[in-house]
């Protein structure tokens, strides 16, 4: 997996002899080094969670949002270079707005994912642009129900029912696979996501982190919003309790 593409990795418009574009793979490394981002599709909606690594004690709580609303019904959680993520979010917002202007209907989550993926892919085609150094989990709730997509720096997008990006993605994916997502409601989902994030957080390597949770579900009237404070606190408490239990074993 970690091969040095000597000479073939200088430009995004160069293929290596074995058919890889190294610049795009290096961009994916940026995503792999960021804080964990988790998304799950519950039976009545989507829950997105981010392990926001806090680099300084002076940073105000609640600042540097990693989960953004893109339209009433969708949210985007960003893993990787935050500034690149802002650009993707901004593009997604304007795509959703322009779709509504033209067709008079809210954009479907599938079309939104397609458009974001096209945009991200665009930046891997020209030598004067660099690929985006961030992967994005897009969760939305439209006429076809709740949907979850990941858009990677290469421009591919896949639909998932459980997804994770960032440092702790392997561990997170294992945890998600243990969940029975088709029976989980979003309320329970929030607690599960919190537990996963608290679980994969590496206390040794990274000091503090802030948990950011958002959902789109029937309870939030199918609007993407931050999880209400009381539920957030409950989830955090439950997650911490679960951690202590694990440590006690």
């Amino acid at each position: 997996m970690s091969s040095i593409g000597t000479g073939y990795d200088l430009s995004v418009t160069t293929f290596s002899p074995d058919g890889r574009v190294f610049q795009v793979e290096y961009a994916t490394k940026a995503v792999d080094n960021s804080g964990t981002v988790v998304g799950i599709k519950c039976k009545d909606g989507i829950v997105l969670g981010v392990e926001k690594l806090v680099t300084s004690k002076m940073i105000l709580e609640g600042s540097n949002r990693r989960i953004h609303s893109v339209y009433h019904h969708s949210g985007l959680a960003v893993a990787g270079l935050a500034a690149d993520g802002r650009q993707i979010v901004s593009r997604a917002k304007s795509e959703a707005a322009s779709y509504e202007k033209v067709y008079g209907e809210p954009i479907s989550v599938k079309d939104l994912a397609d458009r974001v993926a096209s945009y991200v892919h665009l930046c891997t085609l020209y030598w004067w642009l660099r690929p985006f150094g961030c992967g994005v989990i897009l969760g939305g709730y439209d006429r076809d129900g709740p949907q979850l997509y990941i858009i990677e720096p290469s421009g591919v997008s896949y639909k998932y029912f459980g997804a994770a990006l960032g440092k702790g993605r392997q561990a997170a994916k294992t945890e998600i696979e243990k969940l029975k997502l088709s029976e989980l409601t979003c309320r329970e989902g929030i607690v599960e996501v919190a537990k996963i994030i608290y679980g994969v957080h590496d206390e040794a390597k990274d000091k503090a982190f802030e948990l950011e949770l958002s959902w789109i579900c029937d309870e939030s009237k199918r609007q993407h919003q931050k999880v209400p404070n009381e539920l957030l606190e409950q989830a955090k408490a439950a997650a911490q309790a679960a951690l202590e239990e694990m440590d006690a074993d």
Partner: protein
Amino acid sequence: MAIADTPSAARRCSSSTGWRPGAIWPYLDGTGPSQGRVLCSRAGSPSSSGVVRPSPAHILGSDRCGFASGGVAGAAEAQNDIDVLNPPPEVEKLNHKKELLVQPSSSMDVNCQRSLTMYPCVTGTSVIAFKYKDGVIMACDTGASYGSTLRYKSVERIKAVGKHSLIGASGEFSDFQEILRYLDELTLSDHMWDDGNSLGPKEIHSYLTRVMYNRRNKFDPLWNSLVLGGVKKGPKGDEKYLGMVNMIGTHFEENYVATGFGNHLAIPILRAEWHEDITFEEAVKLVEKCLLVLLYRDRSSINKFQIAKITTEGPTIHPPYSLKAYWGFSHFENPAQGAVGSW
């Protein structure tokens, strides 16, 4: 709320800097872009030849552009038997065709890239609103006229904007729909911040004022009078707000407002009977009193009303209902009694 400018005054102050009076209003002598389409025949033109001339409806100060029956101003000229729509050539010759400093152009001018709003087509009539104890109450009828025809009878002219405001509009209905689209965009981007803050009535009123004034400056107004009311928490607790902005960008804040005919018929009632902290029940009674007067006297009003209120809990638009009106006047029952020629 009468718009003070008359085309003659406008002509006097036109300069060669490119302001085209003919772009919106026809001249009193019948030339100009509205030729052939008479907005309304109204007596009382300032000319000396005593001929009835067509003049734009908005001089009346209302937003309706209907084919109003004559006799509004009651000047003596109305008695002349002149076909105003198709004046005979001798009459036309009498009109002074002034030399214009700036050529008027019609909206179909080839040089003109876009067409300019000249007259409204489907219009709503008055909206009345005032502050009451828990917030702001707003009411209007659910009719939209196409000229003088009461074409649409179930039109919602009051809408909620965000969590804190209500907007009511009179005038061109399609322009109101466009304004609602602008407000949708505004509230969407406000909503996407998701930072616990949201746009209040004062901010939306400000925004609408900018939109209306800028459109007016392009000679392409959104032909509406808008009423914006709401409640939002401010530094002094829950602050009620009520304001109005019209098609030329005039805007103000007041305890009670009305658009169109409501200005003439409802405001005097509100002046006499509105008081601070009026309760909801009293407010509804007061509103119904005003609506009833409008129903009797405004010919583009229909007997189907919607009352809406906005409080700290949010906006509520009640379903439409009708008021009991009294039509049992003896002259209505026997209109021909005493008329010449009846037996």
